[in-house]
Every structure is written in C-alpha cells, then in structure tokens.
C-alpha cells in the first residue's frame, strides 16, 4: 500500500478535504443528537408505561370485581333459568288430553303418567269390545299419540270388557304452547310464589303513579343499550366512532300504563341532550335527560404512537441534511473569501 497518498493529503490542501472534514463533524453531531433523542424518547415511553401500569391498577377494583362476579352469576342463572323454562313440561295437559279423547262408555280405573318418557298407562272397563275398539282407533289416529302398545282386553265379571294399554304421547303435548292447556280456576293469588311462613315483603303491583323508564335502546347497527340512572333521571349511551347521531330512533320500555314524549319511533338529534317526558296513568310526569356520546376513534392513539419511530428517524435525517447543507454553504462562503483575498 502506498502511504505517500496520506503524506500528500497532509501536505497539500484539497478543497474536498474540507468538505469531508465538516461532513464527518456534522455526522458526529447528528449521531450524538440521535442518541440523545432516543434517550429522551425512551425515558418518555418508560414514564408512559409506568403511568399506564398504574392506571391498570385502578381498573378491576374490588368493587368492580364484585360487580363482575354478580353479573357472571346472574348470566349463568338466567341461562339456566331459560334452559329450565325451555324444558318445562305441563303434566296437566295429559288430563286435558284424556278428557278430550275419552269416548262415552269407556271408564278408566287406573291412570299412570311418567313425564320422562311421556308415557301414560291406562286400564279400565268398556261397555263392549266395539266401544273399546273405537277408543283405541281414536287414540291411534290422534296427532299427539306416537305409539299405543301393551293392549290387553278380557271379559270381566261385570260383563264388561276389562282392558289395559300404554300410550306414548308426543312430548310437544306438554309444551306451554300446546293447545291442550286446561283452563285454570285457580285464583291469581294462589298462583303466586311460595309464600314464606314469616315476614317477607310482598312486591306491590304496578301503581297508576309509576313513570319509570326501565330500558332505553338506540336502534343502531348493532343496537346500543343506554345506562339509566334512576336517581338523577339521566340516560347515558356511548356510540361507536363515526355514528351519525343526528337522526336516531329509539326503543324505550316504561312502567306499565305510562307514556313517553317524544315517541321512541320519532328520530331524534342527539348532538345535544334530549329530554324525554314520561307520563304516568295518573297524569304525573318525570323527565329523563338522554346524553349520547360518540366514542373516539379506536386505535387512533396507537397509530400515532406507532408512527413515532418514523417521525424520529425523519427528524434525524432532516437535522443531518440541514447540517450538511450548512457545511456546504459555509465552505462556499469560505472559498469566496479566499478568492477575494487572492484577487
């Protein structure tokens, strides 16, 4: 390698050497600036993380966890209750079926019913074999009878036909919607719950002065359920970012007999709070103030943050460009000065 080049560089003054020199100095400054900028940004981010971690501690407090537990328990209970109602059978429909389908001159003296397999075991007496055959044919043709089996018949001591058979009924017969439900003569008070032997408060029936808003839904896609504060009589709902809240129809559930103005199916402008007046049967009124808020754009903060790195890099590049341009201008100015001196 010829080291005389370095020696020549040291002895002769080349203009581009100045350019390289100032450029390297500016590069050094830019590198240090870069380091400092990252250092500061990292500290800011660390502080932000600490703040969010602290904020996270405030979410999920004991009270909130208690609410969560209660909500989950009720969710489970409501699901179980719905399932029980779905499977609930009305065995009394078997009585209605028998009353409807039993022919004259047929007398049953044994009745057995099991809801598990919807089977009815019957035995009794018939006037004649003809009457029994008509009864059996009637059951067989019935839409609710799935199967008729174990039929036995014999002439009894009373000169009547003694018989027994088993009917397997369609389980739909025991459904609440079945058209075989018996008309109850039980008074409404008797149908009420198990009354405790000692002091439990009875729930009062809905009075004529009731004017409560029990549910408020904004008919959007998807539907938005508002939170009703029955103490301050205010209703609050948050709708997704970008929702037009100038014309929204609602669905409102009120106390029995109460009316509301404006009507729920009339579109309302929720850019400012809207007042709903509920009138009870006795004419008394209660106002509810409905406030709809549009949620901020989801992920807006995140996207800003994700662009931070790019912003820093651009800032550093801009600084470097400015420094390089400055160096070139400085060198040009110096060249002009030396030319002037030479002249």
């Amino acid at each position: 390698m010829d080291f005389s080049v370095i020696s020549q560089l040291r002895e002769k003054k080349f203009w581009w050497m100045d350019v390289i020199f100032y450029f390297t100095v500016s590069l050094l400054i830019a590198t240090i600036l870069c380091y400092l900028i990252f250092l500061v940004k990292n500290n800011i981010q660390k502080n932000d993380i600490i703040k969010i971690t602290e904020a996270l501690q405030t979410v999920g407090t004991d009270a909130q966890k208690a609410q969560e537990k209660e909500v989950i328990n009720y969710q489970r209970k409501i699901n179980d209750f719905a399932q029980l109602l779905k499977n609930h059978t009305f065995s009394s429909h078997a009585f209605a079926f028998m009353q409807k389908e039993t022919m004259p001159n047929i007398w049953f003296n044994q009745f057995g019913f099991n809801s598990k397999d919807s089977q009815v075991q019957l035995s009794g007496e018939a006037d004649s074999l003809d009457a029994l055959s008509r009864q059996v044919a009637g059951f067989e043709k019935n839409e609710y009878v799935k199967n008729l089996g174990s039929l036995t018949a014999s002439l009894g001591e009373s000169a009547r036909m003694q018989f027994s058979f088993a009917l397997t009924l369609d389980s739909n017969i025991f459904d609440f919607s079945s058209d075989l439900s018996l008309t109850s003569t039980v008074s409404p008070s008797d149908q009420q719950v198990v009354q405790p032997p000692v002091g439990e408060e009875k729930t009062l029936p809905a009075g004529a002065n009731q004017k409560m808003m029990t549910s408020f839904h904004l008919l959007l896609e998807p539907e938005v359920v508002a939170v009703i504060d029955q103490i301050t009589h205010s209703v609050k709902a948050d709708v997704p970012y970008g929702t037009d809240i100038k014309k929204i129809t609602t669905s409102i559930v009120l106390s029995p007999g109460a009316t509301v103005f404006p009507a729920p199916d009339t579109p309302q402008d929720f850019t400012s709070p809207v007042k709903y007046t509920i009138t009870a049967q006795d004419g008394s009124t209660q106002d509810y103030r409905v406030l709809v808020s549009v949620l901020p754009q989801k992920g807006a903060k995140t996207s800003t943050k994700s662009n931070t790195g790019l912003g820093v890099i651009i800032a550093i590049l801009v600084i470097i460009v400015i420094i390089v341009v400055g160096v070139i201008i400085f060198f040009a100015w110096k060249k002009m000065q030396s030319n002037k001196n030479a002249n």
Partner: protein
Amino acid sequence: MQIDRPIVSAIIIFIVILLVFFLVMPEYKAFVSLRDDLAKKRAEYDAERDYYAAIYKTYSELQVRQEDIKKIDNALPTDPDLGKIVYFLQRAAAQNSIIIKDMFLSRSAPANLPKTGGQPGTNAVKDITFSMDVLGDYVSLQQFIIALEKSARVLEVASITFGSSEEMPQENQTQFQLQRTYNVNLQVRTHSY
C-alpha cells in the same frame, strides 16, 4: 494549532461508527421495544376499561330489572329452601281440597341441563324430587297440579299414578266429573343450585 484534517476525519468516522453500534443502535432497539410494550399496555388498559364499562352497564341494567331478577331468584333459588317448598305444597293442597297423606324428599341430583358457560367450579343446577301420596277427587287433583305448574318456583309433576277399585259409574255419568276420592301418588320436581 493546525488540525490534521484527514486524520481527524478518519478518527471522527471511526468514533461515529462506534457510537452508532454501541449507543445509538441499542437505544433504537430499546425504543422499538418500549414502543411495542407501550402499545400492548395501552391495548390492555383499553380492553380492561371497556370490559369493566360493559360489566357496569350490565350491572346497572340488572339493578333496574330487580323485579325480574327477583322472579328468577324465586324460580331458581341459590338454596333448596325445602321449608318454603313444603309450605307451598301444603298450602296449594289445602286450597284445592287435597289432603297430603305423606311426603318425602326422594332424590336430589344434578339436573340434566346443557352447560351454560358458568364459571368452573360453580354449583350446577340440582333437581329436587318430592314423592307425595295425596287424597282427593279428580277435579281437585287437576287444579292442584295446575297450581303447582303455575307457581313462581319452577315445579314440574314428574309422574302421576292413581286408581280406584270402586264400581264403574252409571252410563249417563262422565267419569271426570265424579266426586270419587282417589289415592294419588305424585312425584314433584323442582330445582335449585
């Protein structure tokens, strides 16, 4: 003092390379990592906040629907409340002219319900079955069963067995209108947690 620019330039470039590798790059990597952590923490915070906001909203709705909740609590209580069931059965029987001869708790077993997403470890719904021998005529028995089926507590009649050894009625009588007293065996099922 005259600066030896070529050597100084070379040294500066060397220093810049060292700075970039040992200071700037690690800081940049830390910056990227912290940025990701921050985004994750923010997402976690937003998700938790939204979740508890939804919980609060549902909880508020439950508070408003206390009357409905009370009905569900009555229908499917947390405890078996056997005393209340026995009291109700006795009361319903008395109101419908039915005499309860004997009654015993025949079975208490987990109900055959599909899983509904409850928390693991929580109690499942249990079936409580009562076996009863009662006395009464057909119409009273029918009304008694309707009263059971329409009670606020979910009650179902799982099986009914009754019969009579008495003589058959006259031809102009309808057997369902007879005032004849039957011995009836009933299996009544209810539920609790």
